């Protein structure tokens, strides 16, 4: 399965809140970040968790966010960043 997003692409994490086993942390849902690395295909953990095959594998990305954009009252430094590993089914073009 070829990756839909390339390094440098701006992506938005779906603001979805499905029940069950989900690997996308709450604090990035609905947020926009940038792809820093395409890690390759990995079986979907949201299916594996229930004994299913996890196929087709999902491209997995490293996505970097400005930390100050993730939290309303972030008190760190302006250039601080947060990198989260996200599966393609959670990402859309920003």
């Amino acid at each position: 399965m070829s990756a839909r997003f390339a390094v440098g692409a701006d992506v938005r994490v779906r603001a979805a809140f499905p029940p069950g086993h989900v690997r996308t942390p709450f604090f990035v849902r609905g947020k926009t970040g940038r792809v820093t690395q395409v890690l390759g295909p990995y079986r979907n953990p949201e299916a594996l968790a229930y004994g299913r095959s996890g196929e087709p594998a999902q491209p997995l990305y490293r996505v970097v966010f400005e930390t100050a954009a993730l939290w309303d009252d972030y008190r760190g430094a302006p250039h601080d960043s947060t990198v989260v590993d996200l599966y393609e089914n959670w990402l859309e073009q920003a």
Partner: protein
Amino acid sequence: MAQDHEHGHEHDHGHDHAHQPHPFQPDLEETPLTHYQVMTQAVGDLLIEKGIFSADELRAMLEAIDAKSPAAGARVVARAWTDDGYKARLLEDVNKAAAELGIDAGGIPIRAVENTESVHNVIVCTLCSCYPRLLIGLPPDWYKSRAYRSRTVREPRAVLAEFGTVIPDDVELRVHDSTADLRYLVLPLRPAGTEGWSEEELAGLVTRDCMIGVTLPKSPHY
């Protein structure tokens, strides 16, 4: 015998312990098993019963995992500090680079994130406690705590300060949340004042915590 007992009776016990039952450490069997502990035990028993692996193989695997320590990670870091070619290979693929040194870092892919003068990295797994166990041993209890997992993404500089680590504001603090299929290792900056040090000496400065990113390597001056 202490003279200030306040209890009413007069006879001599021949010893002077306080008369409250004193607390003792409960035996393992006295703390309730959690759902997942019961499940783990049951699955282990079933796999042995079905002959998938033997009790001794399970025991040996637990022993092997418990025997892993940060020393292997420290060797990898020290080699990267002294050999730029090795460092490039480490940043590409930690498992392969570890294998060059005869270290089996397991099958889960590990990536290294490099500290520089302008970026400091710290690792957390907000959803559970993902950690490169086969390279640097079992995670410390605090790494698995809800406080570390929730606060490191929310107020990382405050968390680091509690570990005694103050990162200047002009350095980007980069938090890595490893909630998926990879594990992460911080490649710390080589401390100044270690020119000419051997790999083995350098490895002595590399602690577990600096490979998680909550602190810096030990200073060469102490």
